[in-house]
């Protein structure tokens, strides 16, 4: 019993120590962002590898999710004689929830894991140490551009996911199932509010972008510099990001849409 309590206490202490380290690291990385703006090419390179290279998975997933959503919603709405409301239902689901959340989970699997592995291997091969010894701060040179690129890319990727998803559901609903095209778009236009839905969705994806990229770069920087350590850190990135995104999604949803 004592041993169990002791291990519980140790686990708790380790958790909070790591959380504190992660927060200090985030502050240092955020403080390094102004120096990234002085060297925009560093940011452009990261926007490409973190953002542009994630477009493929985001577009394909967005399309399939939109198509499935169109199909499922149509069947349910038809039971209530409301099949013409397919447009707003799909758009609200995507813009408010599925777009930001799924894009963040996909982003973490594609770009987050790559960031962790890249930074972890840079640490294992002494590249980060070498940089420090050349009087170059790796947090400013390596971490800050990646963090900023993730924060900028995430809302754009989420917007892309929602837009492609809506097109996918249009293709299924209007193209295959016979929903009226005019009703699909006009109902969507009247039901989807810019501030309440699109803006809040944007805020969500921005928060997810910060959380997902922060976890990815911290796990890489904090990885045990061995093959096994980097492999574990990469796994932790995906798992912790999923927890953090889903948990913060509930909190954000409660704050944004909880009053109704």
């Amino acid at each position, binding site marked *: 019993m004592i041993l169990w309590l002791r291990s519980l206490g140790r686990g708790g202490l380790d958790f909070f120590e790591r959380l504190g380290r992660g927060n200090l690291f985030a502050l240092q990385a955020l403080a390094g962002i102004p120096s990234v703006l002085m060297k925009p090419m560093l940011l452009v390179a990261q926007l490409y590898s973190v953002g542009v290279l994630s477009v493929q998975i985001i577009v394909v997933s967005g399309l399939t999710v939109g198509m499935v959503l169109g199909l499922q919603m149509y069947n349910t709405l038809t039971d209530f004689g409301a099949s013409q409301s397919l447009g707003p239902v799909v758009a609200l689901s995507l813009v408010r929830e599925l777009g930001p959340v799924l894009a963040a989970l996909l982003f973490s699997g594609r770009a987050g894991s790559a960031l962790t592995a890249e930074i972890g291997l840079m640490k294992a091969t002494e590249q980060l140490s*070498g940089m420090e*010894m050349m*009087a170059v701060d790796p947090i400013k040179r390596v971490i800050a551009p990646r963090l900023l690129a993730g924060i900028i890319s995430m809302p754009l990727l989420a917007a892309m996911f929602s837009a492609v998803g809506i097109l996918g559901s249009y293709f299924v609903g209007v193209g295959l199932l016979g929903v009226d095209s005019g009703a699909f778009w006009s109902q969507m236009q009247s039901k989807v509010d810019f501030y309440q839905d699109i803006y809040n969705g944007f805020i969500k994806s921005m928060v997810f972008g910060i959380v997902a990229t922060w976890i990815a770069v911290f796990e890489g920087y904090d990885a045990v510099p061995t093959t096994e350590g980097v492999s574990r850190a990469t796994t932790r990135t995906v798992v912790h990001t999923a927890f953090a995104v889903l948990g913060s999604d509930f909190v954000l949803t409660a704050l944004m849409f909880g009053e109704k």
Partner: protein
Amino acid sequence: MAEAINKDVLVKTRGLRFAHASRVILDGVDIDIRRGEVTTIMGPSGTGKTTLLRLIGGQLKPNAGTVEVDGQNVPDLALKELYQLRKRMGMMFQTGALFTDLNVFENVAFPLREHTRLPEALIRDLVLIKLQAVGLRGARKLMPAELSGGMARRVALARAIALDPMMIMYDEPFTGQDPITVGVIMQLIRQINDSLGLTSIIVSHDVAEVSTISDRLYLLSQGKVVAQGAPTELQQSPSEWAQQFLQGRPDGPVPFHYPAMPFEDDLMAVA
């Protein structure tokens, strides 16, 4: 006389102690690295040789003692001052630590681009001069993955001298290299030290190689300096431990067997 000697000392450690978790790695190390000389820190694996380099470079902080580099106590320096000091230090890591996303030219140009605002034409000339010094001017377009281990270390050396530092530290420069590469690196270390007027610190356990090129050797064991002096002096060291290390004897003060109960007792013991 004593003052004159002190002026000759670029790096001075006194009572240096460093412990990681509960394990003491360095325990009261006093070392003087003289200007213009090649000094080697030797010792078996795990005696804290690399840790010593990291303490000199300010990447680790000691638990006690001082590390003076050019009159400045490294652990007391603020980050900005430490970075200023590091611009005057070069370091060649065991693996080379080249940036894998940059080619050879860009790796050597990296410190120049980060710390100077020189025009591109001048950066090109400087990089080519450094690459010429290590014999790899023709390899400037190769990526690190295309280099052999020895070539990677030579590029790392070119990068370490890019900013014309006052001293350079080599972490295990000969480990795992073929004899030709070892010969090339030995020659480069000595040549670059003498022609650029540097001070070099080598961490190694390759006795024969470092004895040839070093002016002074320090022998570390279990976190302490057990012997020191010029290579010829060290050969005469009365320390049995030093003799075992230098001659590579399998048994001696460092026992062949890991501590265990008597062999007969172990064989007769019931499982």
